[in-house]
């Protein structure tokens, strides 16, 4: 589990609308160079923030990212 990589990515998705737009358009490419495990990368690419939370993503980030928030 890459605690820092997962959570800094969540933070950037919340706070950087341009990066968020890139992610929404092509999740795999936008996070291609990040140090994530295969499971973490798959969860992000699937936009499955419940799974990201299970893998160590902080709750308050995964429930508050505009248009991507876990329900």
């Amino acid at each position: 589990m890459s605690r820092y990589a997962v959570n800094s990515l969540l933070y950037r998705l919340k706070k950087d609308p341009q990066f968020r737009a890139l992610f929404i358009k092509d999740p795999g490419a936008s996070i291609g160079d990040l140090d994530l495990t295969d499971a973490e990368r798959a969860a992000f690419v699937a936009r499955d923030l419940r799974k990201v939370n299970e893998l160590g993503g902080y709750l308050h980030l995964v429930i508050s990212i505009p248009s991507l928030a876990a329900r």
Partner: protein
Amino acid sequence: MGKIVFAGAMSHVLDPEYYQRVCGDVGRQKTEEAIAAIAGMGERFSATKADALVVVADDHLNAFSFNCVPAMCVRIGREVQRMTQDHAEAFDAVLEHMPLKYPLHEGLANAILEQGMAAGFDLALSWEAPVDHAFLAPVNTMHGTRPIPPLVPIWVNCFVAPQPSARRCFALGQHIARVVAKSPWNVGIIATGGLSHFPELSVPRIGETDTVFDQKLIHWMERGEHEPLQELSADELHKSGGHEFLNWMVLLGAVSPARADVRYFGELRRINLAAVEWKVA
């Protein structure tokens, strides 16, 4: 010689629309009841004509990013901005109708910081960090249209492990009380957050609370029994969803051994809403 003239603690998501969405009519009803209780506390605080209001709350990963997560941080400077968020979701959205800037009590904030460092409290400081709903929902609910006095925001890291211990938070409150006593100012203090919600910070457990745990905390607070509260472990707080009680521990240290009066306690499946006041005058 200064003194603490008001002390209160309360939940900090105070949005009837939000709780209507997630809990239905009962969510709206109980949130409005909690808001009324907190507004009443605000009227009593305003009547003290305090020079400053210390607000102890947590950051929901809004003010601080992962380049630094301070255990305890004092906001210094002359004013503080509310957090802004594009296309805000959930409780970030409740900030949007609130004023953008708030005055700070520079003298008290600097005294807490500087005397803290001298006394062995290695407090972080910030000139720039904005404040989120944890600070501003209670402050605005307390004051309504009345002027808000200069604030001293203090963050406690309640979410990013490892958090400071309950005992250390209590000790910070004792430090704040000593600083106030040596100052020329009359000061109010509030702590925000809770009570139990989001156990283990896990999405599948959103919607669970731990009322037995909360009642235990209230029992001790009402009796002024603060030693067992200082023994609360990070694991207990994590499993119960009591993370934000660390903010309350700071307040308890500042007012100990005062006893708490519960102004409101309302169970919801999403969170147990609470408003509590201490007899300090």
